[in-house]
Each structure stands twice: as structure tokens, then as C-alpha cells.
């Protein structure tokens, strides 16, 4: 009896994962892609995307929901890369320089985002989303109008022909896949970008360690109850800002890793989908808006990208149009986010109702005595 209930509860808790699994399991054979191709793609994409997804973990721990403002970090990373390319620093050194330049930018943006989100309690997610749009405008202002005119840019190869502003596509040849190939290990037919994996592994260790620190404990306490945490002497606002700052810095590094793998950068569009992909991956991996773990990240990246690899081909095979598969995967990813948000809000209300009902029942019992 208790076992059947458990199964149903597990299914309900992981509804999004189960739906994704079923659809992907159906689409993989339909697509007709070879297992070897799919696995190699997945291995590459884990290295490319996992770091970005990890940047969402801390704000969730601090009860701030999904940090759609992580795109601010992505922009900081892009600014770092522009500088690295402009100065012509090659390879991993270039990436390190990009991260070094991006760091103060990310800290500043993260602090700003934290301040804004502290003023929008209870609607952090939508505010973070709009903040991403707003800062996209600021980013354009800086990169398209100030770089080359106010901020000196040396290389004419990356500026627009009018003399200022960065080109729409920035070739990252000087740093292309430098981290991935730093320690590429060949296992059978597959190539593993071990250096990237090591960086991701270090990040996992950092997160595990961070949870045990005083700051990490404070964050979890705030995630549970802000009022109680405040009474317990935790600086709620400050801790929330720190969570966002760390998240933004991680997103900055994540975006650099992502772009070095891609090999070129759509200067004005590269960050636009970052938040969407990271959020979708995390939620597809079984995380909720209030709880996310390291396995969620990996399951999510694998599942989401498996779908992104096979869906266009599956659409082409089924309907004769790859476009249908592309629309379908977008629709499914958006729906996965919507559904995860709905389940979270639903459960939050159900718990509140239950608590209230319990209170009422208690009173009634007390009155009967």
C-alpha cells in the first residue's frame, strides 16, 4: 500500500523528467541518428553547458527562485572575451584573462541585480527576467557605441567599419576550444574534454563545500523562512545579494566556457537564450524552483540536449520538415519551465492550505475538550 503511494509520489515529484524521458525515448530511434554520434554530442555539450546551469543553484538555495538575471553574468563574460580577443592573448591564457576582466564586471552587475531583487521580493523571477532585458540595452550601449569610441579597442578586425562598435560576429579563433583541447582524452571512439570536466568537477566540490559553510547555511535558512532568519540574526538582504553575486560570477565563467567551445560569438545575441537554456535544463533535470541538486544539473543537461540533438531529425523523419521538430523542442522546453513553475506554485499553496486546515482542526479539537 505504502509502496504504491511512493511510486505515485515519485512520479508526481518528477513529472517533468518523466514526460521528457518518454518523449525523448520515442524520438531517439525515430531520428535515425547513430548512438555514437549522439553520445559524442552529449559529451561535448555537458562540457559546454553544465557550468552555466550550475550558476542557478545558489539563488535557488537562498529561496530566490530561478535567477533569470544570470544573463548579466553571461554579458560580463562576453565583455571579457572581447577584451581577450582584442589584446590577442592566445589559448587558455586568453580565457583566464577574459575571466579576470569579466570578474569585476560580474561582481558589480551581480551586486546591482541583488539590490534590485531585494526590492522585488516575491517576484524575483519575473524581475530578474526583465532586468536581463534592461541590461541587454546597457550592454548594447557599451559594446555597440562606446567600444572603439570611448573605450579604446586596438584591433580594427573586430570593430565595425564605421570605426566604433564591435562586429556582430566575433571570431574567437585565438581561444577556440583551448580549454577543451588542453587535456582531450580519447576513450574508444569518443573524445572527452577532460580539462573542462575538471573545472566543472572543481565547481561541484566548491558547491558541496559552500553548503557547509556559515554563509551556505545562512542561505538555506533564508530559503526556508526570511522572517525567522532575520530574527536569528542573519543579514537577509546582504546574504541574498551574495547569492546573486556568486551566481553572476559563475555565469560569467560559464559563458566563457560555452563560447570557447562554440568558437565564435554572436556579439549581441549570444546571451539572449542563456537564461532560458539554463533554466530549462535545470528544471528538466528534476529540480524545482525551491530545491536543486548537483545530479539535477547533469540529468537536465543530458536530457535537454538529447532532445535538442534528436528533435529536428525526428521532425524531418516524421513530418518531412525539420522545422516542426525545432518548434516542438522549443515548445516543449518552454512548457517544461511553465510546468515546473506551476507545480511549484501549486504545491506552495497546497501546503499553505494544509497548514491552515491543520490549525483549524487543532482549534476544533481543543474546543471539544
Amino acid at each position, binding site marked *: 500500500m505504502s509502496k504504491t503511494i511512493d511510486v505515485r509520489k515519485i512520479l508526481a515529484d518528477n513529472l517533468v523528467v518523466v514526460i521528457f524521458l518518454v518523449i525523448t525515448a520515442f524520438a531517439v530511434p525515430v531520428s535515425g541518428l547513430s548512438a555514437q554520434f549522439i553520445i559524442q554530442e552529449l559529451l561535448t555539450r555537458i562540457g559546454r553547458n553544465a557550468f552555466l546551469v550550475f550558476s542557478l543553484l545558489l539563488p535557488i538555495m537562498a529561496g530566490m527562485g530561478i535567477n533569470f538575471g544570470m544573463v548579466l553574468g553571461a554579458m560580463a563574460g562576453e565583455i571579457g572575451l572581447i577584451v581577450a580577443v582584442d589584446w590577442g592573448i592566445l589559448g587558455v591564457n586568453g580565457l583566464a584573462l577574459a575571466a579576470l576582466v569579466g570578474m569585476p564586471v560580474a561582481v558589480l552587475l551581480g551586486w546591482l541585480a541583488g539590490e534590485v531583487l531585494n526590492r*522585488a521580493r516575491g517576484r524575483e523571477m*519575473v524581475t530578474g527576467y526583465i532586468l536581463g532585458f534592461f541590461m541587454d540595452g546597457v550592454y548594447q550601449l557599451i559594446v555597440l557605441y562606446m567600444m572603439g569610441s570611448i573605450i579604446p579597442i586596438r584591433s580594427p578586425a573586430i570593430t565595425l567599419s564605421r570605426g566604433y562598435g564591435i562586429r556582430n560576429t566575433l571570431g574567437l579563433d585565438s581561444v577556440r576550444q583551448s580549454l577543451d583541447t588542453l587535456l582531450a582524452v580519447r576513450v574508444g571512439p569518443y573524445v572527452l574534454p577532460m580539462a573542462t570536466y575538471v573545472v566543472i568537477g572543481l565547481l561541484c566540490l566548491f558547491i558541496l563545500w559552500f553548503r557547509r559553510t556559515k554563509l551556505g547555511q545562512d542561505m538555506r535558512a533564508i530559503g526556508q523562512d526570511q522572517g525567522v532568519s532575520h530574527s536569528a540574526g542573519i543579514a*537577509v538582504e546582504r546574504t541574498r545579494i551574495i547569492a546573486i553575486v556568486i551566481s553572476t560570477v559563475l555565469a560569467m565563467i560559464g559563458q566563457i566556457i560555452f563560447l570557447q567551445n562554440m568558437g565564435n560569438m554572436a556579439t549581441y545575441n549570444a546571451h539572449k537564450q542563456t537564461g532560458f537554456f539554463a533554466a530549462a535544463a535545470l528544471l528538466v533535470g528534476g529540480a524545482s524552483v525551491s530545491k536543486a541538486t548537483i545530479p539535477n544539473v547533469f540529468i537536465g543537461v543530458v536530457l535537454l540536449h538529447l532532445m535538442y540533438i534528436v528533435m529536428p531529425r525526428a521532425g524531418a523523419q516524421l513530418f518531412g520538415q525539420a522545422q516542426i521538430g525545432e518548434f516542438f523542442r522549443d*515548445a516543449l522546453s518552454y512548457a517544461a519551465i511553465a510546468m515546473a513553475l506551476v507545480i511549484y506554485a501549486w504545491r506552495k499553496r497546497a501546503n499553505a492550505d494544509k497548514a491552515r486546515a491543520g490549525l483549524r482542526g487543532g482549534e476544533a479539537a481543543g474546543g471539544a475538550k
Partner: protein
Amino acid sequence: MNTLKQAVTDFGWPRIIIFLFVVALFIGAPFVNVRVDSSFTDVFNRFGQNAVLVLALVPMVQAGCGLNFGLPVGIIAGLLGSTLAMEFGLVGWAGFLGAIALALPFAVAFGFAYGFLLNKVKGEEMTIAMYVGFSIVTFFAILWLLLPYSSPNMVWGYAGRGLRTTITLEGYWGRILNDFLALRIGENFQFPTGMILFVVLLTVLMGFFLRSKTGTAMTAVGSNPDFARAGGVSADRMRLTSVVLSTVIGAVGILVYQQSFGFIQIYNAPLFMAFPAVAALLIGGASVNKASMLNVIVGTFLFQSILTMTPSVINSVLQTDMSEVIRILISNGMILYALTRKTKVTK
């Protein structure tokens, strides 16, 4: 002096800056050889084109459901209406009114489902609305490819199936409201009387509705749900009504937009249509839980003036195209300001 200060704080600095910016644009226009009369023509056109979409946000704000970032739900219903009307070969007024009639059942059905969902997720409406909007737009992108539309004016020429990304309304009902009783004054000024009348009609109707018994109850639910419940008003039912109404007006809004624009845009085009509408409403002085007809009119007019005037005026002044950046900063800055306005006192 203090009352003035209070008024300024209530109205909000961003709005005052935006208002002064618009005034400066109109004053500056003649000095950089931008014709004010043709600019006004554009402003009126775009005002009418967008006002109904902005109006669609009001019921949900009033009922406490927040800013309707899920406006695409209504827009999709409108798209179904106009594409079906074209498929049935309706032209002229029959086409436009037919499109509205065909869109209504979809809008009501979608609105019910959407409202039902939003009632289940109180407190998280805005984020969820946004993603519901994104989901329905991308889902319908599949349907636009698969549904058996056959009118040669709408489907891809070579494949014979699947709707085009933009469908022209030329020969159907393009500019039918704009040209109705249009006033031409001088060489460069034309006033789209029909469309403005239509907007005014809808705005007045909405104003009356909000003053009716149902409308008052809706506002009560938005301002104080517990109080409304004590007064015998079902909060859930009022919220549902507001969402259905918002979706229906959204559907009509996109039809007005299309006839003025001259094209039906499908696939990913509606994805971000809610954001400019929200920005316009907020610029007009609305907040996350209070909006009036005046906010709609003033906001749409100011926002569309900025969109019309910045490309020409600012570009002439700065010799560079910065209008896109200005648009992004103003519209999203305004939404951010509204979202961060009400602070709770917990430290």
C-alpha cells in the same frame, strides 16, 4: 510645495523624465528637419494600432493577477480568427468583423483554461503567465505548419501547405479601420478616424464595465481579496472573468494591430508582444495592481511617440541609430521600476 513633492513622488520620476523626453523630441523635431505633421500621423497610427493591446492588460491588473505577460494567449486566438477569416475568403468589413467573430470562441476557451491555471498559482502569476505565453506561441508555430490551410494567399507557394511567416492583408481588410472616415489635413497629415473611434469605443466600454457591479467586484478582489470575500464576492470567479476578458480584448487588439500594420505575423512574432504593451501601460502611470483608462491612453501615446520620434530625431542629432537601445532601456526600465516599486518591510 510639499503637495507638489508628493505628487511628483506618486507619479514617479521615470514617468516625468519620459514625459519631458517626449516633449523635447517634439520641440526638437523641426530643428533637425523632421516634419512634425507627418510624425503626428505616425504617432496616431501607432497609437491606435497598439492601444487595444494595452487596454487588454487592464482587467487582470485590476483583479490582482498582475501584469499579463501571457498576452500572447489572446494574440494567438486573434491570429486564428484572422487566418480563418482569410481562409473562408472574407473580405472588407465582413473580413474584419468575421475575424473578430471567429477569434472570440477561441479567446474565450483559451481564456478559461489560462484563467483556471492562474487561479491555481496565485502569487506566481507573472512568471508563469510569461512562460505560458511562450509555450502557446511555440506550440502554435507547429500548428501553423500542420493545419490544413489552403488559401493560396496564405500558404507557401512552392510547398502548397504551411502558412507564410507574414501574410499580407492587401485585398482583404488591410487598413479598413484606419481609412474609415480618415481625415486628411494638408499634404502630410492624416488622422485615422475609424481606428481611433474604435479604440475610444472599446475604452469607454471598458470604463463602464469597471464601474458596473461586476467590475467593482473585480477591483475589490484586486485591492483586498479577504475583504472582497467577506463581501460575498468569489475571488476565483472574478479573477477568471478578468483573464477571459483580457484574453478576448487581446484577440481583438491584435486584429486592430494587423489591419493597421497590413500584415498578419505568425510563428515567433507574437513571442515578445506583451512586453511593449506592458511598458506602455506602466509609462501611463499604472502600477502592478492598479490601472485606469487614462493610463492606457496616456501611456500608449507617450510610448508610441518615443518609438516614432527617436529614430528620426535622435539619429539626426547624434548621427547614429540609437533608437533600438533607447527603446530597450525605456520600456524595460519602466517595467523594472514598477516591479520594484512596492517594497515589503521585512529586513
